[in-house]
């Protein structure tokens, strides 16, 4: 294995082995082995990646590299701010360039990368859903008929819509005229194909408030999945194409219903394309506080409002501002009561490729979310990340009376 980059070496050198990262790592909490948390990963990278002992380069090193949700909790807890997620991503890039591709994650990265394929696969999904999946009475979503290989559990997916967001618009841009700032709506793959209701909600609310929003049909996947699996080539290509679209439209800011897409564009595009000039990127709740709050009216309070819980995505801005804004937004809903539940800020365990590669661990992390919602009798869980939606649909499905999972944009549209 070639040398680590200077930056990765510097991260590794800062680790003092205190173990603080173990106390916060959602993967460690389930796997309970050193290589799951940052300290063990760092130690193994130090010993194995920096050359030398071949014997250390086996399965455990692969596990150490792949068993990470990149949630960033270890970095926050680390007194020396060691950025393990970055080191892991770097290790994945090296691995990917050297070893046979992991078919499962490559397939995921490449399907997402190809919008035509992605849209095609949505149609395909609808076609085969009666064959491969089934609807079970009393359970949200649709359930795969076959168990995930090697896991014994059957995956639950959100019910596919009849048409994707751009598909409904005949493949054209979706435009909401309005005054003031011009926003670009970045739907993300999920907000286009799997859960267009999220993008539709943003559009409907913008229309109500008279805010100028354009959703360019030529946008592509943000590339986070490719970036995180170390597929640098695909990530670069996607970033390049999106940046081209952004510059064509010249918006004041980009708004997206998904915090993960926002993180990718805001935090990783500058690294991938250092010269690009990017507009500000905000997620839906920030958009609400700037331009929707007080302007979308209300349908009045409900006599028996639905109990709504929240799930905090790891990719919400680390700054507390965004995290308190989304809660203020949910508290303002007239037709739903937002209750703070225990563990609403715990990781859902999704992690994109992580969920594909380590379905069992991913699900075990996610299943822990059930207790808090159950205790508060939550009927509906809102979150601001597409990946979290997919995961929560799956992991909450097998509790009694599972709550429905929606995006925060839909929550405001339905219950504002």
């Amino acid at each position, binding site marked *: 294995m070639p040398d680590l980059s200077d930056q990765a070496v510097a991260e590794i*050198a*800062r680790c*003092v*082995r*205190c*173990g*603080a*990262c*173990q*106390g*916060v790592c959602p993967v460690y909490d389930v796997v*309970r*082995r*050193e*290589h799951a948390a940052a300290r*063990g990963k760092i*130690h*193994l990278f130090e*010993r*194995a990646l920096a050359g030398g*002992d071949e*014997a*250390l*380069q*086996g*399965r*455990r*090193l692969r596990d*150490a590299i792949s068993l990470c949700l990149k949630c960033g909790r270890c970095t926050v*807890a680390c*007194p*020396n*701010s060691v950025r393990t997620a970055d080191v892991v991503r770097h290790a994945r890039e090296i691995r990917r360039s050297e070893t046979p591709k992991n078919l499962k994650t490559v397939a995921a990265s490449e399907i997402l990368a190809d919008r035509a394929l992605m849209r095609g696969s949505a149609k395909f999904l609808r076609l085969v859903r009666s064959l491969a999946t089934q609807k079970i009475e009393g359970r949200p979503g649709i359930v795969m008929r076959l168990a995930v290989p090697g896991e014994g559990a059957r995956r639950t997916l959100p019910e596919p819509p009849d048409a994707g967001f751009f598909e409904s618009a005949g493949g054209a841009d979706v435009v909401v005229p309005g005054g003031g700032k011009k926003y670009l709506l970045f739907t993300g793959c999920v907000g286009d194909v799997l859960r267009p209701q999220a993008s539709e909600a943003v559009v409907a609310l913008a229309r109500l408030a008279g805010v100028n929003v354009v959703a360019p049909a030529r946008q592509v996947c943000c590339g986070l999945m490719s970036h995180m699996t170390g597929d640098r080539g695909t990530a670069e290509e996607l970033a390049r194409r999106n940046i081209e679209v952004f510059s064509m439209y010249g918006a004041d800011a980009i708004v997206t219903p998904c915090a993960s897409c926002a993180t990718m564009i805001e935090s990783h595009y500058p690294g991938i394309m250092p010269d690009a000039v990017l507009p500000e990127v905000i997620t839906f709740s920030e958009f609400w506080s700037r331009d929707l709050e007080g302007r979308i009216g209300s349908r009045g309070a409900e006599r028996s409002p639905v109990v709504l819980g929240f799930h905090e995505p790891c990719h919400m801005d680390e700054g507390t501002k965004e995290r308190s804004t989304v809660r203020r937004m949910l508290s303002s809903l007239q037709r739903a009561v937002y209750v703070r539940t225990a563990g609403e800020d715990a990781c859902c365990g999704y992690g994109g490729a992580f969920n594909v590669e380590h379905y069992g661990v991913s699900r075990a992390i996610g299943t822990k979310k059930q207790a808090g919602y159950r205790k508060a009798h939550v009927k509906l869980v809102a979150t601001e990340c597409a990946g979290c939606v997919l995961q929560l649909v799956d992991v909450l499905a097998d509790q009694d009376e599972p709550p429905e999972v929606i995006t925060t944009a839909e929550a405001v549209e339905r219950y504002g």
Partner: protein
Amino acid sequence: MIERALISEFKKAVGAEHCTTDPADLALYAYDATTVEGNPDCVVFPATTDEVAAALRLANDARVPVVPRGAGTGLSGGAVPVKGGIVLSLARMNKIIEIDRANLVCRAEAGTVTGVIASAAVAQGLYYPPDPSSINFCTIGGNVAHNAGGLHALKYGVTKNYLLGLTAVLPGGEVLKTGVRTMKGVVGYDLTKLICGSEGTLAVVTEVTLKLIPHPPHRAVAVASYPTAKAAGEAVSAIIAARILPAMLEFIDNTSLRCVEDYLKVGFPIDAGALLLVEIDGRPESVRAELDTAVEILKKNGATSLSFADDPVGCERLWEARRAVAPSLGKASPRRISEDITVPRARIPDALERIGDIGRKHAIPTAVFGHAGDGNLHVNLLADQRDLAIRPRMQAAIEDILRLALDLGGTLSGEHGVGLAKKSCLGWEIGADGMRILREIKKTFDPNNILNPGKILPEIGSE
């Protein structure tokens, strides 16, 4: 090396996927929070007391060393398998078995993270006070093995003060239940307290019974800065002498506070020579009154600035800052050496002054912080202990510091334990008769010397 046949026996005892000899795994269980390393030959992850017993029986029959491991956050090399053999990790034994609200007792498996127990108690309006700075990631079994202390030891005591009973497995595989679940009990020698602090050399703890107390209704923290470490030390002695018993009384010197401020940005005055964190808890009225008295004393002893926190979030933030001091010193010096001396509280100003002298004498920069209220000072030597040119000077400085502790009527280690780090000077403090009894106790528990060999007790002849 361990024979293949024995490995398959271990696999049978704990399940094949919970026993590993993968070279990468051996590297991953070669360390704790110190810089010492040593590979084991095999790592096992039992899930029950019975599995621990089975593993110990096998190891004992084959005379293979067994090193118990909690979270590997120890600061004396205790969990490092310096003689190879088996690392026995309790990471999978992490359940709280019960919180008995009627009797204020908690039972938990040894691998449970201490902070998880503390939060579960708080959720019931109860309090488990021992809170080592590693509380959010160390295990209760490790705390018992080290008799860990914490920020609140001054008023509330250390792990052993809350330990009512244990389930522990002896090296031969016998399961021993010690102690009581009552608040008193004097039947026989106190085996519970003997195992507490034995650093995994006498038995493997698998389950603990802990005493809980009602949660104090209110707390407030004052942060006072002083121009010099010595001035702050004098304020500590003055508070103790004034018969105030703060819940916490912590000392942070300038180097330490700069490192932690760099990490957490709590707003500490980085030009202060030293800071004191003084916490009072109890009923709101009494907290206010006692805090006023404490503040008077802090001022009289030359505090140059004061700030306060009296809400749970503010207090938690200050604890977090204090807890981050040790690891954030790693930024200043990743290969530093950290000592853990404890002196009588009236001697703190002397100790601080003489530590400064020792650092200057050996030309080694120092940083000092710690639980000043109970006399426990973490003296850090900020130099690279792997650097052979500096190492002898560091050794000499350590010796001076340890001698200083004993000179002032103190002890070599307040809470981090002996482990590997201090076993060569154990005899200085406890004397020849003490050493003999320690050895005999060890032999009675572990006649084949398989449990954590090479820890605490120096090899015969090397004293």
